[in-house]
């Protein structure tokens, strides 16, 4: 396994890119530790597949370098990079047995049969598919097929990185968490460097130690799941992570204070010096409470999600969502909302602009 360094990467699908919008990948500089679990998270078209293809060698970046440990692999072909990939749809040979499918990547590299046998059995044991080893892959259920695909990605112990490209998209929700936990367990046992690409926040956050959030070819934040949730550095991250996402409320800033709907809102800390075109308050629904006093609001919608209620209320013309485990008010009711000051941030032109008090 290897440490992966992406140094000053940029990529454009145009021959002569001239403006920022010409780049599918605008600028990227990061390094991933050997043995870490990482996720690339973002909506369709954010550049995550471009980045994945650059790492796997299907694309040569317009600018910059990729290093595996300290070796420059920028111009190496996929086959020369020693990587494994698991795709959205299971890639297995239906006519082969599960054993032969798992053994395929090893036999392809002329690994001796004794080693093949011990590796395949070890992986099968971890995946809990030992009893399927003798059966043909054709008859397997979709989730078992994807399990075997994962096993093929993990069976070699000489690879630099295992990449997963939306591996759970075709899997039923009730089986998703099983495969997710399986993958996490495998990571803990194998200590392989793993990169997981997805648009699904739950998958990214539950799998990775560190998540790279991308939007329109740019990395907007790199952080642990808790960091991304607690203190998004950009409104996009606030919106994208969390269900529902962060409330992003347009506000006025004057004299170092944030005014929302005519009222001064206490923020986590001082506002950074500077000017911007837009100012917004960011507060997660989890940190908005219904109280006896506070911002006046009228309930517009209540969704009972089972383990809690999502209450949407209008403050003036702006919608504010609140998550409550208590009994919820009814649509049309007048209520008061309070924001937890320690979790209330100011965003200027999308980027965080309050000083953290370290809380």
């Amino acid at each position, binding site marked *: 396994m290897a440490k992966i360094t992406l140094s000053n990467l940029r990529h454009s699908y145009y021959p002569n890119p001239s403006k920022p919008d010409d780049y599918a990948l605008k600028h990227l500089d990061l390094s991933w530790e050997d043995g870490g679990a990482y996720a690339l998270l973002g909506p369709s078209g954010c550049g995550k597949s471009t980045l994945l293809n650059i790492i796997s060698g299907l694309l040569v970046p317009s600018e910059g370098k990729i290093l595996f440990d300290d070796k420059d692999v920028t111009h190496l072909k996929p086959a020369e990079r020693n990587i494994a990939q698991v795709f959205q749809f299971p890639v297995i040979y239906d006519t082969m047995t599960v054993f032969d499918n798992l053994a395929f990547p090893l036999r392809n590299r002329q690994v001796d049969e004794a080693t093949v046998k011990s590796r395949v059995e070890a992986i099968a044991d971890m995946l809990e598919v030992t009893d399927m080893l003798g059966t043909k892959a054709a008859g397997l259920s979709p989730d078992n097929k994807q399990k075997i695909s994962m096993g093929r990605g993990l069976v070699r112990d000489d690879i630099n990185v295992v990449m997963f490209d939306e591996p759970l998209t075709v899997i039923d929700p009730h089986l998703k968490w099983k495969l997710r936990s399986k993958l996490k367990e495998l990571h803990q046992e194998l200590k392989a460097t793993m990169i997981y690409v997805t648009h699904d926040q739950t998958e990214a956050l539950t799998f990775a130690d560190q998540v790279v959030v991308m939007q329109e070819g740019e990395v907007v934040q790199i952080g642990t799941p808790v960091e991304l949730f607690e203190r998004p550095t950009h409104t996009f991250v606030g919106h994208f992570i*969390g269900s*529902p996402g962060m409330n992003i409320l347009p506000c006025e800033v004057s004299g170092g204070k944030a005014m929302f709907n005519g009222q001064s809102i206490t923020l986590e800390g001082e506002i950074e010096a500077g000017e911007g075109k837009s100012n917004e308050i960011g507060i997660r629904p989890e940190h908005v409470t219904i109280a006896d006093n506070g911002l006046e609001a009228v309930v517009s919608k209540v969704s009972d999600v089972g383990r809690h209620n999502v209450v949407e209320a209008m403050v003036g013309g702006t919608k504010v969502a609140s998550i409550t485990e208590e009994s919820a008010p009814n649509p049309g009711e007048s209520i008061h909302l309070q924001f937890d000051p320690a979790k209330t941030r100011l965003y200027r032109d999308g980027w965080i602009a309050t000083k953290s008090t370290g809380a």
Partner: protein
Amino acid sequence: MTLELKGITKRVDGRLHIKETSLRLEPGHFNVLLGETGAGKTSLIKLMAGLDRCASGSILMEGVDVTKQNTQQRNISLVHQFFVNYPHMSVFDNIASPLKVAGMAKSEIEGRVEEAADLLQLRPMLHRRPHELSGGQQQRTALARAIAKESNAVFLDEPLANLDYKLREELRAQLPELFAGRGAVVVYATSEPEEALLLGGQTALMQDGNVTQFGKTADIYRNPADLVSASVFSDPPINSARVTKKGDEIRLDAHVKWTATGEASELADGEYDVAVRPHYVSPVRIADRHVPMTGTVQVTELTGSESSAHFKLGDQSWVSLSQGVHPYQVGEDHEFFMDPDHCFYFLPNGQRAR
């Protein structure tokens, strides 16, 4: 419009694929079919839409028997998981196609298409071809076609499954409003319990070709009729274990026991299966009445706002889901606390005990 299924069944290769099903589906709210892949959701939709023949039973639309009618005669719309649009036609023509087939006047077609396009924010894209649209816009086009057609029944078969997570969230919030007040019966198939809760309305839980429970979505979530229904309507999976009741005491194993309260105190002595949702199993003790249990942590997950831990309790796998960040050590024993007031009790045959 009402859509009524009276004891319909479907056979595949002689085997009963949809078991005898009776449902009365009303307009004005969503009718959700919730179940795993293979539970029979799509098969049931095909029968209702007239794409498949029932082996027995009858289907009534507004009281009229349509069992023998084909899809065209039933005046229905269908939106699939995969985006189905005519690639050679513009968005406008895609939305207009069923109206043209019906021979509607050009001016009326224009009015209906524009109204549907406005609702789905497709107005600026009316002249584009489907391949020039994002996945979300393609699915909006399919939905706009269903709306413009003003059919009696609209079947949405996992329409959001292939969309990005956030896009799914936005479109899901809009869907009930889009169809509100149109008088059509809307049937929505999903494999995600949370989606059913968010859509509200009524839900039919399905497993293995059976509708196991049907009713107001929030009600059947809070009041499962049997263990199967409780499991179908839970993600992460509901925790369950065999318990023995004797007098006031309910005992799960040598260490875990609690005092029967509420509904449970009325139960006769004997064996039951207890089921409790993961968010009522917490890593911290919230109230004295909560029941301590020690399990070996196997996997932990963190979603930013919530933590979950999968742990082994005897030979059962249990899940705890809680707000906030909790440090767990995988492989180590950890104490969890179950809220006994939110336990469901089932008889050994799976029926709710009450």
